[in-house]
């Protein structure tokens, strides 16, 4: 009996070759984690390293706290911190004031044109923030702003009545730009809410507005709070608005200060000072990210998942339909229509002017025709490289990470999940500065400075957090038993991956692939921080043109950028609507 058992165990061990599989998975997970620790940790480590050194990157100097002394013993620093906080708080307030009613109107009521509004909101995300900022400058600048000129003509004013060059002006543009992102984050919470919760309020004799205030808002409060923290964290680190509006007016916030320290218009770059400013941003970012994660966890307790399929019942707006539509289209006007119209107008004129008979007769396509000559092929090729390489590498890493986090029992999967979330907390500008320092100081080991590859790297690190969030949720949606049924049917692990998991997650992965490609396409902060002569992309070209005061050329390129994004999103929406049906089933 004893012998027999041993014999069988030997057979079992032989057949169970994949008893080595767990070791295999663990080994693979260890390798991947190690790679990601280096990928994500190194730029962050560089920021800390540079804050402890003076002089130019690569200079052999002893560690010092001099930078911190310079930064934190200057009263100006605290003024800038205050500016940053004011800017962040006002931006987020403006965003929520628009986004919360917008979500409620679109998710819970029968407002018409829903699909169109969704598409316009998506385009709203893809219009680069710096283009929107430029458009608002063309409207509200005291010197060249069209609205100011028009008001001056109309009322015979001696001075321009409006001035965008203030913290409030910055917060307005930034706040409006945050709305689509906030909308899509909140939409999930409102969509997953069981309509019977609202119905229970109605049958208790409570009115619709009171139900919104007493039921909807409290139930989605954790989600709103999480979005608030997330936006605040982002607002502290954004660069485009503070650079374009703030720098000329000498209104500094943390991010613009970090940028000017590393790429000053005169004098030598001071990476040490940038590092010392970066340290406070890093601490703020990590703290807020921790808070965000906590809030999201709390929010999950509130999520009422009933498991049965229901269509959210829509509230009939009745005569409130027109005010609601008015609100939505007012928002879309300041988010999409007006900036686009201004850019289009400016791109067709030899110089910026108010509409008049003379202006209409001088319309020209000259600036569009001259784009190839002005820009050259390099930026287009570089941008294309970004749009293909960044999403491919990001999604590849994301699928692998999510598979380990969601589907395996590897003991450190929680650590891996946290690790890939860190780029959410570390502002892109810091990552880029860290990478730039790495490229300059350790040129021999890391010979990427000045190449497109370093931008690809920066973008990949930045969006791996987003990529893994989406692959995580896609992977969770694929019921565990679908995979197990494949295993029990006798299919090996690679076969289950190829025949079951990949087909089921393909639509979701493709969707984020395109989305990350588009985000990479419109990104400017990191590309600008890492800019040299050879790795110019289209967004940095626009930025340089703007710096040189070439308004019609900026406008023409901007229009092309926006149109291209719109076409891509439109096509993808149409194409994915069919594949999406399969992906969403189960």
């Amino acid at each position: 009996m004893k012998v027999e058992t041993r014999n069988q165990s030997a057979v079992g061990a032989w057949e169970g070759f994949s008893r080595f599989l767990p070791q295999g998975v663990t080994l693979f997970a260890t390798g991947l984690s190690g790679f990601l620790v280096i990928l994500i940790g190194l730029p962050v480590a560089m920021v800390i390293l540079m804050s402890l050194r003076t002089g130019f990157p690569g200079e052999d100097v002893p560690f010092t706290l001099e930078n911190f002394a310079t930064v934190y013993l200057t009263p100006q620093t605290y003024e800038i911190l205050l500016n940053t906080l004011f800017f962040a708080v006002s931006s987020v307030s403006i965003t929520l004031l628009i986004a919360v009613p917008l979500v409620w109107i679109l998710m819970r009521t029968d407002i018409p044109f829903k699909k169109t509004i969704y598409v316009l909101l998506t385009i709203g995300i893809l219009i680069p923030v710096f283009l929107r900022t430029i458009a608002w400058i063309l409207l509200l600048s005291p010197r060249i702003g069209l609205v100011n000129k028009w008001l001056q003509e109309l009322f015979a004013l001696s001075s321009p009545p409006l001035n965008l060059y203030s913290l409030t002006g910055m917060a307005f543009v930034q706040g409006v730009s945050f709305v689509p992102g906030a909308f899509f984050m909140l939409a999930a919470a409102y969509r997953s809410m069981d309509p019977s919760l609202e119905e229970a309020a109605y049958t208790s004799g409570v009115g619709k507005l009171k139900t919104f205030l007493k039921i909807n808002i409290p139930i989605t409060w954790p989600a709103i709070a999480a979005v608030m923290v997330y936006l605040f964290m982002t607002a502290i680190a954004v660069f485009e608005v503070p650079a374009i509006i703030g720098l000329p007016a000498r209104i500094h916030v943390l991010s613009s200060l970090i940028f000017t320290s590393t790429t000053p218009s005169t004098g030598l770059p001071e990476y040490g000072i940038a590092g010392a400013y970066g340290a406070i941003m890093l601490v703020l970012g990590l703290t807020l990210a921790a808070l965000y994660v906590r809030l999201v966890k709390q929010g999950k307790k509130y999520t009422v998942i009933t498991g049965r399929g229901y269509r959210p019942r829509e509230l009939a707006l009745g005569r409130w339909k027109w005010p609601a539509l008015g609100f939505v289209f007012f928002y879309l006007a300041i988010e999409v229509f007006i900036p686009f119209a201004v850019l289009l107008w400016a791109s067709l004129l030899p110089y910026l002017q108010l509409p008049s008979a003379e202006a209409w007769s001088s319309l020209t396509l000259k600036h569009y025709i001259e784009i190839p000559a002005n820009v050259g092929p390099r930026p287009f090729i570089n941008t294309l490289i970004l749009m293909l390489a960044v999403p491919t590498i990001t999604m590849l890493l994301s699928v692998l990470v999510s598979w380990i986090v969601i589907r395996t029992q590897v003991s450190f999967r929680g650590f891996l999940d946290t690790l890939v979330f860190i780029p959410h907390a570390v502002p892109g500008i810091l990552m880029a500065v860290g990478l730039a320092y790495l490229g300059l100081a350790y040129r021999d080991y890391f010979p990427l400075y000045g190449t497109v590859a370093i931008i690809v790297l920066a973008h990949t690190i930045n969006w791996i957090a987003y990529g893994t969030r989406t692959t995580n949720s896609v992977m969770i949606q694929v019921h565990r038993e679908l995979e197990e049924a494949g295993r029990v049917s006798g299919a090996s692990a690679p076969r289950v991956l190829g025949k079951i998991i990949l087909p089921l997650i393909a639509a979701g992965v493709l969707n984020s692939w395109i989305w990350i490609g588009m985000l990479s396409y419109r990104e400017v902060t990191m590309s600008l921080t890492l800019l040299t002569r050879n790795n110019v992309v289209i967004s940095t070209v626009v930025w340089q043109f703007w710096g040189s005061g070439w308004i019609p050329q900026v406008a023409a390129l901007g229009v092309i950028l926006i149109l291209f994004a719109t076409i891509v999103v439109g096509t993808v929406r149409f194409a994915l609507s069919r594949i999406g049906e399969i992906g969403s089933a189960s």
Partner: protein
Amino acid sequence: MISIRKLRKTFYAQQGVVNALRDIDLEVSEGDFCVLLGPSGCGKTTTLRCVAGLERPDAGEIEIAGRLVNAPASRVYVPAEKRAIGMVFQSYAIWPHMNVFQNVAFPLTQGQKRVSKSQVADRVRAALKRVQLDGLEDRPATDLSGGQQQRVAMARAMVTDSKVLLMDEPLSNLDARLREQMRVELRKITKSIGVTTLYVTHDQAEALSLGDKVCVMNHGEILQIASPNEIYARPANLFVAQFVGEMNFVKGAVTGPGKVESPLGVIAATVPNGVTTGTEVTLAIRPEHIEVLPAQRDGVAASTGRVTSRNYLGDSALLEVEVNGVTLLAKLAGDTALSVGQNAAVELPAHRWHVFP
């Protein structure tokens, strides 16, 4: 066919250590239908998943068809795909990107023992016929009703003619009527192909009607393994008595051999061995063994009670009667003339009482 010996599994959750399985022993002989019954979290699903190879036990051994598939002590672990089993999942796990044919054919085209194309078609058709789904081969899996998905899952589990079939609450997502119908069919199909079945459920009616053998579990332990009849008629302990079927419980104390003192008076019942005089015990009697009559019958001992509620079910009636401050539930075949508030004679046959320490 399936032997489980000293199986142990511990989960380390955030809330602490969960002993999911504590040294489980179970033998299922060839062709038997064995049901694992217990409340949620009792370890029944963990046991099934260990047999499937989807969960790895910490200790113990599992043998399927004479082949050792799990023995952590000697580092034996055969992965799920090499165990040659069929399994039906609670969610059915029908792959939404394949049609009915592709779903059922998967084990034959992607599994360990692949067969020729023509054979695949034949066997898939035969499997679908067995579950009465012939003709639906080309239907997308997502267009099926719950009951149909359930049948596809069964066809897929049986298409390879594996010797062992594992089922994890396969009927729990169906509505009541369909569930009863499928119960009958399931038993018929498994018996006709002679497959050895291990079946997990928390529904006692399902367990009693399906199993050749029912295995009641709680807190990671097996409390009783017996035929459905035995489980119902002679529950081994208080938990089984409570979990399987309806039962009235009355507290009491043993006062002598075969004598238990209770609020209902001294009851002559068989006291289990080892329970000494003076021990506190729980008396139990099934509702259908209690007779409630308008007046006492000659020669039959009865207590006097008062009807406190009456619930008519069509084929039977449920009466609540209060006897000496104890509320007892009685199930009467057909109906009764008694109404609420009336006094009645309550017969409690001595041989129907169970005594649990």
